[in-house]
């Protein structure tokens, strides 16, 4: 009994092992790819990896909450698209100011998430079915609202410029400028980017969102109940927690993140592409799972999910740089995913 009740050495806790595995895997990938190709570690490529992670990463943040809570959200990809379309509808078609459009996109995502939550808690539709329905609904609505055409943000170039600018780069230039005003990086920024210029603002948005998500999950009531419900929903209910309300809140939060992803993808592509989105939910779920979030609920972390999202994009990027045929890239991604879930199962036994 002594051994069982004493806290195990913190490094050996199963969830830490999983996170360590994912992180170790990520480092291993980076080492292998940087040895295999001299271009892998170039600032532009690193920036590219960050950018490629942003959309999937933000989607995965929301999905992490839902999965820890014991549910699943299949609609995040198309909710993202629908949010992008609504943002474009507000900004380009209805000529609203950009911040209003961004707000509309976020709100659209949150409303879709709210609808998911109400379907799950009030109508008692299983999450898989409810969110599958939402996948189709938002996929269709995106096409209806956009009338099957991409909507461009050409009248509001500021949207793309801000998103794809680099505050970090500007800061670096200011700092360099103080010490060396004649440095070419200061005088001709376009031709001489600083090393942090490839880190675009939407990447910072992603990191900001991740920090907020980690805060909500770790430090707030919502996060606590996310774990509690995923761990044992009946016990949580018997403890007097209003389970339905909190679950709805979790789906809404997930929708909000999908909305944010919609704004990000719109800004990056400078357009809302209504046919995009289906399939993105699987990448997001994969990121969460690789990062140690258990599909049976109760465990997971934001840090893990962020690592998982990077594993996916580093893998894709590295294999492309090595010109591995695409079909094999897909096989490798699938293998990594199964391996991650297998480890998840094994440590549970």
């Amino acid at each position, binding site marked *: 009994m002594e051994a069982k009740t004493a806290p195990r050495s913190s490094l050996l806790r199963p969830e830490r092992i999983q996170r360590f595995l994912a992180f170790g895997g990520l480092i291993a990938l980076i080492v292998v790819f940087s040895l295999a*190709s001299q*271009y892998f570690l*170039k600032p*532009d*490529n690193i920036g*590219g990896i960050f*950018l*490629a992670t942003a*959309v999937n990463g933000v989607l995965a943040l929301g999905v992490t909450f839902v999965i820890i809570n014991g549910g699943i959200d299949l609609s995040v990809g198309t909710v993202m698209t629908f949010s992008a379309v609504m943002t474009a509808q507000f900004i380009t078609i209805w000529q609203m100011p950009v911040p209003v459009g961004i707000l509309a996109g976020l709100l659209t995502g949150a409303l879709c998430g709210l*609808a998911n939550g*109400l379907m799950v808690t*009030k*109508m008692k539709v299983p999450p898989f079915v409810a969110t599958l329905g939402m996948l189709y609904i938002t996929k269709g*609505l995106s*096409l*209806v*609202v956009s*009338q*099957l*055409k*991409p909507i*461009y943000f*050409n009248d509001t170039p500021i949207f793309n410029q801000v998103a*794809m600018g680099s505050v970090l780069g500007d800061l670096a230039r200011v700092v360099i400028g103080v010490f060396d005003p004649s440095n070419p990086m200061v005088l001709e920024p*376009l031709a001489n*980017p600083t090393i942090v210029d490839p880190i*675009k603002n939407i990447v910072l948005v992603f990191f900001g969102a991740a920090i907020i998500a980690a805060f909500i999950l770790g430090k707030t009531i919502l996060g606590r109940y996310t774990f509690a419900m995923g761990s044992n929903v009946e016990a949580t209910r018997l403890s007097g927690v209003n389970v339905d309300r909190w679950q709805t809140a979790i789906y809404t939060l997930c929708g909000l993140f999908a909305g944010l992803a919609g704004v990000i*993808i719109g800004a*990056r*592509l*400078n*357009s809302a*592409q*209504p*046919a*995009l989105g289906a399939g993105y939910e699987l990448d997001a779920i994969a990121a969460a799972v690789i990062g140690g979030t258990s599909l049976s609920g109760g465990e997971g972390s934001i840090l893990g999910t962020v690592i998982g999202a990077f594993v996916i*994009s580093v893998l*894709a*990027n590295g294999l*492309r*740089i090595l*010109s591995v045929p*695409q*079909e094999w890239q897909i096989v490798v991604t699938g293998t990594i995913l199964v391996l991650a879930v297998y480890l998840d199962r094994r440590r549970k036994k």
Partner: protein
Amino acid sequence: MKSKNLFVVVSLLLVVAMIAGCQPAAAPATQAPAQPPAQPPATTAKPYIPVISKGFQHQFWQAVKAGSEKAAKELNVDITFEGPETEAMVDKQVEMFQTALDKKPAAICLAAVDSKAFIPLLEKAKAAGIPVIGFDSGVDSDIPVATAATDNIAAAAAAADKMAELIGGSGEVAIIAHDQTSRTGIDRVKGFTDQIKAKYPNITIVDTQYGGGDQLKSTDIAKTVIGAHPNLKGYFGANEGSIIGVLNAAKELNMGGKLTIIGYDSGKQQKDAIRSGFQAGAITQDPIGIGYKCVEAAVKAMKGEKLDKNIDTGFKWYDKTNIDDPEIVAVLYD
């Protein structure tokens, strides 16, 4: 209980409002009857020709649709235009074809996602005496009486010639295409690659990747490839989604003017890039012509007229200099 009812009502309202809000705007754009004729042609005066395409979401297919509707109006026939959501949905398309056959149409126009999957159904159509007209990528079979399509191999070869000319006959180029299994994907990559290999020994194709026509994925791919090949001089994108990826990547990497970009088809973003000189130019097919000519051929076949096996709908090269020529404007779409 109360909140449940409220939810149902609100969501219904939302849906209705969206449909209502978009309907008037959508109507003039598509002049098709609001609903496909559910009845067999016996009850309508006009002959019925279903047009089964490979998709409907992309601008290209919308243009094909516009062309076929134009022909239908001029030649006084009823058409329906439908296609699966993605170009991978063979089963869905087979089902559409089966349903179309059951309605006993006067003729069927088909752009097969997978030719081989259609052979039994094509034989069924032949036995029933219903002529089949292929369009776009066509159908690998003797049964279709005619095929209205772009010669994609020739078109991609023309793109290769332009690329060679613009980069001075030597250097590294890369290709990004939509997928490695569809006819158009295969033909365009093959046409471009073969032409370079045969005629321009000093040009090397350093990478060929596929982005599924997804703009975001294509962007990330193109970015990686450009990063991995600093000496890259040219980039060929084999469809609209792919070339948009190349444009985004080049823009994000500040490659304006350093890279010769050649695209395929049109679309607003590509047209803008060509106008500004960011993109060298593109091959355009004639989607409206494809739609028009396949319905026209179907009407002829229905009347028993003799048809050429291959109806070449042609392709054109366009760049900054001729983008506003009337004959180019006619085949471009937004």
